[in-house]
């Protein structure tokens, strides 16, 4: 019941309302009776006509009319009689639509009739009806759906329909329905490469012009902005997926060890970076590939790995992602190194290459077409001195982000140009993109209405799109400039449009991470090599107190082993799954509210130390990641053995299901969780110790 005023019933209306109600009740009863007794007489049909005119939503009456139509059709042989029978039905629909232009039942009745294909359709009548309806309500989506149905039904070329959307837009720029239909038609025409639609660049340039006209006419109307965003997204992203980072990076020379004495080794050549690789204890060395968009199809045949080390046939590429999708930005494989016989200074080199291949495809279906080739060398050290997991960490790790990082030791294993992808095709494509975007930038900087939030947001997005293209080249200074300006705009937007504050904060967080990590000089301020007592040196990054709300640009952090993200406003840590060397993570004093939000960490085999203190786990009854990751509710996880194990210990599965799924999949030695609502709940400690038997310290106290 939409838009009916709330007024007290006047007594004089009561009688009229009663009469109206009585009439309706009577009609409904009679039509249902005729339906059940299969009475399809003229009189009976007349009653259903009256009912539908009064209440077009009475769906059983539409069904009844379809049955009657089919029944009576059997008795008609002449086309004229059939036509007149169809005409009766079309008239009922028209009257019903007059009562309610959004009646599902009425619109479907019409489609159903046409689909019977019993007589030639009077398209003039059909389009006439639509014109009338869309004139009254240009946004009636039933009308637009019917128009698409008709166009398809009679084979109207999409070029014609595209013209119609332009007419509608010219009538009134504020017609989201018309813009929407335009985007659908254009995509189809471009995909099919129809005549006049061969050049995406030409078409998009024209569309930018059209929509800009609308935006400058009324900058407060949303319709055009959404269309502009679509054009922008099409213009700023490369057509084909690209590899943008890897670990180890191209040319890396690594001296790998699995125990803490790594740095003391004197026979390490100076050109080698020492790194303590915890996964070596399990006899594996992860290789990580990171793409600019989610891809699928990495196999031993689409990615070739050559090495003087016997790679073996069991190379398996695994997508690292929270969702169970097959597509991922980030892929990992584990080289088996346990069965090697090590001499102290033997070096192994690995060559990886991805040729042009149709096996690797993005979500939109475009295939990988910029071949890359990279090599790295490693020298295993001390791999044979296998120790127990818990021995690696002798004392609980304490974090102190107030202490400035020691400036003299910096990780040596990172490179700013992790991959050099030079591909003429991409350069050419980027050139057009950048020109187009620069034109738009100039235009929007001139938009007179300075306080239009959409104008500011679009400007910020244009800047980021330019920044992204710049990263494919080498103009990092320009990139920083774009980031700087975008940050300013997001700060403005937070004040200008406080209702969507947290959207702008998330955007700002990503730009901030980009800015902090995009050049080595500024990034180094946050990096160090952490030498903790009784522990091997770890490549450490400290990003504390930066108001980060979410994580981005993880492709620049693939080498990180110890990460301090404490004292931010993080509610999501998605992306961290790519950090396959991470051993210690501090996310204390953030806004993480569930264990499902920590799902990315279950993908990191090396993770041993986790500080979750002072978050919001257990505070919120509504879990916003309940459906993002595999759970019994999304039919990706069957109620598992761990549930039963917990039930036996009287742990409430309905309350703790997300904790159970998390602790079943991690192998922590140290965990901090004080300052979360869940910490005070009975049985939570039991749950952790039961499912994560390797745990040694809980909230600083020794477990055993």
């Amino acid at each position, binding site marked *: *019941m*939409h*838009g*009916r*005023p*709330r*007024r007290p019933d006047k007594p004089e209306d009561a009688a009229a*309302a009663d009469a109206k*109600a009585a009439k*309706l009740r009577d009609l*409904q009863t009679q039509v249902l009776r005729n339906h059940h007794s299969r009475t399809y007489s003229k009189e009976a049909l007349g009653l259903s006509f009256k009912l539908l005119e009064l*209440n077009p*939503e009475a*769906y*059983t009456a*539409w*069904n009844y009319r379809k049955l009657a139509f089919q029944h009576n059709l059997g008795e008609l042989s002449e086309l004229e009689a059939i036509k007149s029978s169809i005409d009766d039905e079309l008239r009922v629909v028209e009257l019903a639509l007059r009562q309610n232009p959004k009646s*599902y039942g009425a619109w*479907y009745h019409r489609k*159903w009739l046409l689909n019977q294909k019993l007589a030639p359709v009077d398209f003039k009548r059909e389009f006439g009806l639509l014109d009338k309806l869309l004139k009254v309500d240009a*946004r009636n*989506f039933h009308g*637009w759906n019917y128009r*698409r149905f008709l166009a398809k039904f009679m084979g109207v070329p999409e070029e014609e329909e595209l013209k119609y959307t332009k007419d509608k837009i010219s009538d009134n720029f504020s017609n*989201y*329905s018309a813009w*929407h*239909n335009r*985007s*659908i038609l254009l*995509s189809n025409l471009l995909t099919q490469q129809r005549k006049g639609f061969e050049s995406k660049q030409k078409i998009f340039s024209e569309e930018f012009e059209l929509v800009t006209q609308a935006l400058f006419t009324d900058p407060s*109307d*949303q*319709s055009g902005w*959404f269309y502009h*965003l*679509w054009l922008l*997204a099409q213009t700023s992203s490369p057509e084909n997926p690209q590899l943008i980072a890897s670990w180890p990076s191209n040319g890396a020379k690594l001296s790998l060890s699995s125990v803490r004495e790594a740095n003391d080794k004197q026979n390490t050549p100076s050109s080698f970076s020492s790194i303590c690789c915890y996964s070596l204890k399990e006899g594996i060395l992860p290789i990580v590939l990171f793409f600019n968009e989610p891809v699928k199809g990495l196999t031993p045949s689409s990615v070739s790995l050559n090495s003087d080390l016997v790679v073996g046939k069991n190379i398996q590429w695994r997508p690292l992602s929270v969702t169970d*999708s097959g*597509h991922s930005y980030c892929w990992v494989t584990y080289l088996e190194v346990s069965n090697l016989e090590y001499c102290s200074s033997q070096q192994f080199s690995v060559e990886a290459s991805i040729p042009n291949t149709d096996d690797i495809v993005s979500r939109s279906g475009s295939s990988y077409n910029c071949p890359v080739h990279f090599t790295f060398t490693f020298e295993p050290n001390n791999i044979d001195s296998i120790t127990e997991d818990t021995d690696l960490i002798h004392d609980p790790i304490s974090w102190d982000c107030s202490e400035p990082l020691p400036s003299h030791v910096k990780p040596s294993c990172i490179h700013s140009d992790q991959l050099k992808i030079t591909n003429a095709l991409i350069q050419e494509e980027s050139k057009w993109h950048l020109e187009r975007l620069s034109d738009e930038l100039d235009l929007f900087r001139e938009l007179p209405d300075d306080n239009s939030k959409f104008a500011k947001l679009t400007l910020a997005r244009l800047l980021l799109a330019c920044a992204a293209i710049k990263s494919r080249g080498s103009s990092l200074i320009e990139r920083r400039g774009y980031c700087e300006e975008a940050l300013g705009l997001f700060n403005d937007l937070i004040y200008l449009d406080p*209702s*969507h*504050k947290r959207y702008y904060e998330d955007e700002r967080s990503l730009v901030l991470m980009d800015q902090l990590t995009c050049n080595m000089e500024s990034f180094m301020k946050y990096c160090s090599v952490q030498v903790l007592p009784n522990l091997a040196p770890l490549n450490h990054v400290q990003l504390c107190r930066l108001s980060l709300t979410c994580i981005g640009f993880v492709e620049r952090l693939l080498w990180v082993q110890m990460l301090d993200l404490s004292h931010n406003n993080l*509610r999501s840590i998605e992306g961290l799954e790519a950090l396959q060397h991470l051993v210690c993570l501090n996310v204390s004093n953030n806004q993480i509210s569930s264990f499902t939000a920590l799902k990315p960490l279950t993908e990191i085999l090396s993770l041993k130390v986790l500080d979750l203190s002072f978050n919001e786990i257990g505070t919120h*009854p*509504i879990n*916003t990641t*309940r459906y*993002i990751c595999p759970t*019994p*509710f*999304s*039919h*990706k996880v069957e*109620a598992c053995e761990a549930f*039963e194990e917990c*039930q036996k210990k009287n742990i409430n*599965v*309905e309350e703790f*299901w997300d904790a159970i799924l998390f602790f079943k999949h991690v192998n922590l030695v140290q965990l901090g969780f004080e300052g979360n609502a869940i910490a005070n709940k009975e049985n939570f400690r039991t749950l952790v110790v039961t499912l994560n038997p390797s745990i040694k310290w809980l909230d600083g106290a020794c477990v055993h």
Partner: protein
Amino acid sequence: MGCLRFLLLLMQKKDSFESLVMEHIRLNGAYWGLTTLDLLHKLDAVDADEVIQWIMSCYHPESGGFGGNVGHDPHVLYTLSAVQVLCLFDRLDVLDVDKVADYVSGLQNEDGSFSGDIWGEVDTRFSYIVICTLALLHHLHKINVQKAVDYIVSCKNLDGGFGAMPGGESHAGQIFCCVGALAITGSLHHIDRDLLGWWLCERQCKEGGLNGRPEKLADVCYSWWVLSSLIMIDRVHWIDKDKLAKFILNCQDKENGGISDRPDNAVDIYHTYFGVAGLSLMEYPGVKPMDPAYALPLDVVNRIFLRKRD
């Protein structure tokens, strides 16, 4: 909250014109009303046996579907409501589960889409309904889930939203159906969460309420459609919850109870349910939390999927 008085009154008031116009969707009404009662911890105010008996009188044993009321034709729209109400009372045992599951799964078309009934109307609403019904009955395996998902994905638009059919305009109600169906089938990776999340959070109007499409008026019912979708894709923090809660509460009829679409309009059961459900999704004190995908209280859904089954 005045809702309770309004709801109980409504159950007796069957003869007004307003009730009669809605007669054919009385089973939906039962779901809206009873879920609201449960969210307000008052489900015990109704006689469960009486309700279940009436629900079952809408059942068509020959097809396995439910009609919107006694004597009305079966359709998936009402079959889901019937199943949901039985879930509220934990009484799925009264159903011939296989028969009902056969009815809804039999409506899948070759392209993966679903018809709403034997007459063949196709809509992504029906995809959600069938998937939700089957999941609640633990019979999702009866359909081709992959094809069902592919069809929904083919209805995805360039703004990140979904329409009723391929090419159909994005609409918050339709988005809920598609996001819900993808959530239940573990397929949310098909969604660009940032793109859709921004489109959805821009549904919040100046007065705090949510609309269903750009440049439309705010309406309490979108508190559910938009909020639940935003929660499923983990972007609900992008709207201002306090402002929305105020808008919903402003639509309350403080004299007679109930909630309307907009402030000072006439209240009805549909908007009362969506208002309370919206408050529930925002963790409003005194209201039970709700599951955003199955549109049932969280404890009911947890019981169905986490309780050990034989």
